[in-house]
């Protein structure tokens, strides 16, 4: 049993922490206010190898592990949850399914460009009528002889418009239910594929979240990812991995709100003393600190199991459920401790509270996580 990071992970944390403080933090409020995708930050991250942390070197990645990847998403999200989710969606939802299900040709064609950050990746599963019930896919893919012809709409797609590669799910045989869903690799710019309206969101406002529209979009036959009918299993497995990334994002948001609140509580004086001198502050912050640490242990354990090749589906659901709810609780209380100031955009905690909410929703709502966790409990 070992609860410490190894030396490589420590060294990585030192780098990513400094990078987040110097390069990410100064932009966080601005990209939120302007709802602007931080392309310049993505470029900087690409140069350092942050867009391909857990990707093997033979596919152009850094050859790091998933613990390092969660440290990256946590440290980035500590200052800017938008930056955290860009990396998470790219790494967990696009590169991972390619690595896990792609043919050698597909991996060699797409992964090096994604891992180097030259290309950005995205994932399209959700539809207007297929949210938590992801099996209700209405997008179709018809065998067109030498190609697949895609028709339908995807919504709420992270990195849309900026991504070069999209993993898209579509029905190839409706009569087979979930076994009739297949996964496809769709490149930006393919005729018949357009990016639709950009959502105006409560939080993670710098993240590009858009609709994808497929109208007789013809993609090469070799862009089928995995087997025909194997798409739903790919989607579920991909989301298991993605949840660890989102849990790390939630953990980062919670830690960021803790940092801000501790700083503020020491500075803010009421009734002649710092509000940190009041037992209400001390006890509440002690509880929150404990929850943040517990969330961190759950995130690290899930990442550890993934690195070791152990089953981690339930661990991923647990860490996401707990970290997301912790982020919501910590940020809400952080605003409360800041009082009126916390409700203004002069302080970052109101943004953190808005950002935290999405972690309870995307890549499976908290209710879905509870379904996953309890699914094998009563067998």
């Amino acid at each position, binding site marked *: 049993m070992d609860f410490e990071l190894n030396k490589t992970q420590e060294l*990585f944390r030192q*780098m990513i922490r400094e990078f987040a403080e110097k390069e990410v933090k100064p932009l966080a409020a601005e990209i939120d206010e302007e709802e602007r995708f931080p392309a310049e930050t993505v470029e900087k991250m690409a140069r350092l*190898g942050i867009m*391909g942390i857990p990707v093997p070197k033979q596919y152009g990645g*850094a050859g790091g592990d998933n613990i390092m990847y969660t440290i990256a998403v946590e440290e980035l999200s500590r200052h800017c949850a938008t930056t955290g989710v860009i990396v998470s969606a790219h790494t967990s939802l696009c590169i991972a399914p390619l690595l896990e299900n792609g043919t050698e040709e597909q991996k060699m064609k797409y992964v090096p460009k994604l891992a180097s950050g030259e290309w950005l990746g995205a994932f399209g599963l959700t539809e207007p009528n297929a949210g938590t019930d992801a099996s209700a896919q209405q997008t179709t893919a018809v065998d067109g002889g030498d190609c697949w012809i895609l028709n339908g709409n995807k919504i709420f797609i992270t990195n849309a418009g900026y991504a070069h590669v999209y993993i898209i799910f579509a029905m190839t045989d409706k009569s087979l239910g979930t076994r009739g869903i297949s996964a496809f690799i769709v490149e930006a710019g393919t005729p018949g594929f357009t990016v639709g309206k950009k959502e105006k969101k409560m939080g993670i406002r710098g993240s590009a979240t858009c609709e994808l529209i497929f109208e007789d979009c013809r993609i090469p036959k070799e862009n089928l990812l995995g087997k025909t009918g194997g798409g739903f299993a790919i989607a579920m497995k991909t989301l298991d991995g993605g949840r660890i990334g989102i849990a790390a994002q939630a953990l980062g948001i919670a830690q960021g709100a803790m940092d801000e609140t501790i700083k503020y509580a020491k500075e803010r004086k009421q009734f002649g003393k710092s509000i940190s001198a009041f037992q209400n502050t001390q006890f509440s912050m002690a509880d929150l600190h404990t929850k943040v640490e517990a969330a961190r242990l759950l995130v690290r354990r899930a990442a550890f199991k993934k690195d070791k090749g152990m089953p981690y589906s339930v661990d991923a659901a647990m860490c996401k459920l707990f970290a997301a709810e912790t982020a919501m609780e910590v940020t809400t209380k952080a605003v409360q401790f800041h009082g009126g100031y916390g409700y203004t955009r002069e302080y970052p905690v109101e943004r953190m509270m808005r950002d935290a909410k999405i972690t309870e929703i995307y890549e499976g709502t908290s209710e879905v996580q509870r379904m996953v966790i309890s699914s094998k409990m009563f067998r």
Partner: protein
Amino acid sequence: MDIVVCIKQVPDTTEIKINPVTGTLIRDGVPSIMNPDDKGGLEVALRMKDSMRANVTVITMGPPQADAILREALAMGADRAILLTDRKFAGADTLATSNALAGALKCLKWDLVITGRQAIDGDTAQVGPQTAEHLGIPQISYVTDLVHENGNMFSARKETEDGYQILEFETPALITVLSSANKARYMSVRGIVEAYGKEVEVWGADKIDVPEEKLGLKGSPTKVKQAFAKGLKGAGEFYEVDPEEAVSIIISKLKEKFII
């Protein structure tokens, strides 16, 4: 071209506290970092690696845990790392330190030696110049930019109190660099992943040809009498006025403080 960069592990003095009773540094819980001026020097060397394929070796004298900054240097892109560590080096002042470094440098092949201007824990700015003297090579201190002219000709921008000088020089030479010279690069993720798989050469006192009485405490003619944190200066006051009024403000302020 071969460059050796001398680096030092220091406590992060932005987080340092002094024990008011003993006057010594409280190092518990204070993170150790690569000295900022040294990092600036390493960046100068790595830019020479980028532009003219220079070979960059980093060397540090310190306790075994100074290995950490060598790993950091490797992750930033240094090619070779050497840790000078031995009980015989312990307690060294600037002279004994420069004796050891110069001894180690005599065992290496180089065209240029780069050190930081000064370390944030001692603030002496002596080790670089002393090392150059031991090696009998020219030195330029307070460098903020280095440009390769041709062959073994370089030009350096040296900061002075009232401006700067552009100096041309030939290698072999030693320069001391300011952290403000550049924005040092981050370690790359792949560099980090590979850093602990690389070799850090560990050299003891027997590896270098320097008499024992010139090393460590024995070789140190100076002793630390007292350590103190730099006091914080109060915030300055700004006046945007014409020169005549400025003079009278300055005079009245100096009189206020009984300076004149």
